[in-house]
């Protein structure tokens, strides 16, 4: 089944799915409610057996943007070497999507990174902890409303003086 046929079949099965193409890269936009079913179908019926990347974009203050966070799933079919981008959008407050760790084990750390940097909850994730920032860090620093130099988190570190040993 070619990629065109895959996308046509996907649109028949899920009428809400929109498809587009940019410089030869095919992508589908899925409403948040259907994201897990679409990803499951892509894996189990259309052979996209590899999750290449899972990341997020913050569209705060972006011209013409209607939703705040865009989640991006990059999938690959290792049999046919086809690739597809799946996008969905979530919004404040408490943005969340279903976890796909059950489909691709690779999603485990990627979802932890998106949680760490953007604060998007992945419902059903087995171990949703911070992965890069230290424990106890309050903010999600890749959000566009987070200041570049931080909110003073590093100033809470203990100070060691001369003579302490």
């Amino acid at each position, binding site marked *: 089944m070619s990629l065109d046929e895959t996308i046509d079949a996907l649109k028949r099965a899920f009428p809400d799915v929109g498809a587009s193409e940019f410089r030869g890269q095919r992508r589908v936009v899925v409403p948040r409610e259907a994201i897990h079913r679409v990803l499951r179908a892509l894996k189990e019926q259309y052979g996209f057996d590899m999750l290449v990347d899972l990341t997020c974009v913050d569209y705060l203050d972006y011209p013409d943007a209607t939703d705040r966070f865009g989640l991006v799933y990059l999938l690959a079919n290792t049999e046919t070497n086809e690739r597809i981008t799946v996008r969905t959008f979530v919004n404040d407050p408490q943005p969340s999507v279903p976890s796909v760790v059950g489909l691709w084990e690779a999603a485990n750390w990627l979802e932890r990174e998106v949680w760490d940097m953007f604060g998007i909850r992945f419902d059903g994730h087995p171990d949703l902890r911070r992965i890069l920032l230290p424990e106890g860090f309050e903010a999600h620093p890749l959000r566009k409303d987070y*200041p570049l*130099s931080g909110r003073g988190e*590093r100033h809470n*570190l203990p*100070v060691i003086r001369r*003579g302490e040993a």
Partner: protein
Amino acid sequence: MAVGLPRGVLATRLDELVSWCRKNSLWPMPFATACCGIELMATGASRHDVARFGAEVFRFSPRQCDLMIVAGRVVMKMMPVLQRIWLQMPEPKWCISMGVCASTGGVFDTYSVVQGIDRFMPVDVYVPGCPPRPEQLIQSIIDLQEKIQREGTLRGREFDDPRRQEPPRALR
């Protein structure tokens, strides 16, 4: 000399002698987290040869070191590790902040990078440069040797003076 010392006998203050021994046998702890570490290695290698100044014995256990060389940027998550290693070093001990990243954060003015390690731990000598050349690091070691000779005491508590306890508040 008027006191008539025998040949081969030198009279000095014990304090001076101990400081002289200390300053010429610094054992550095290389805390290298970035490109400054490469220059640090070059400083230890044969071309620049920091052994000429008695500081070639790089030890990777803090218990055996008395000179911490922080070479590279330190992030929030690394700072507790750096402080722990510093506390594990026995007194007397000194610290060189090598390069602009360790000294001020450098170009990394972000939420995660510590904007100068001296906000959270003591520093004796700052070395500018990005990264500094080995000659600059050697100069800082020479400067530190002068400081050790000037300030050293036998008690090993050179810095008990309460005026030196507080880090510069304006910087924090």
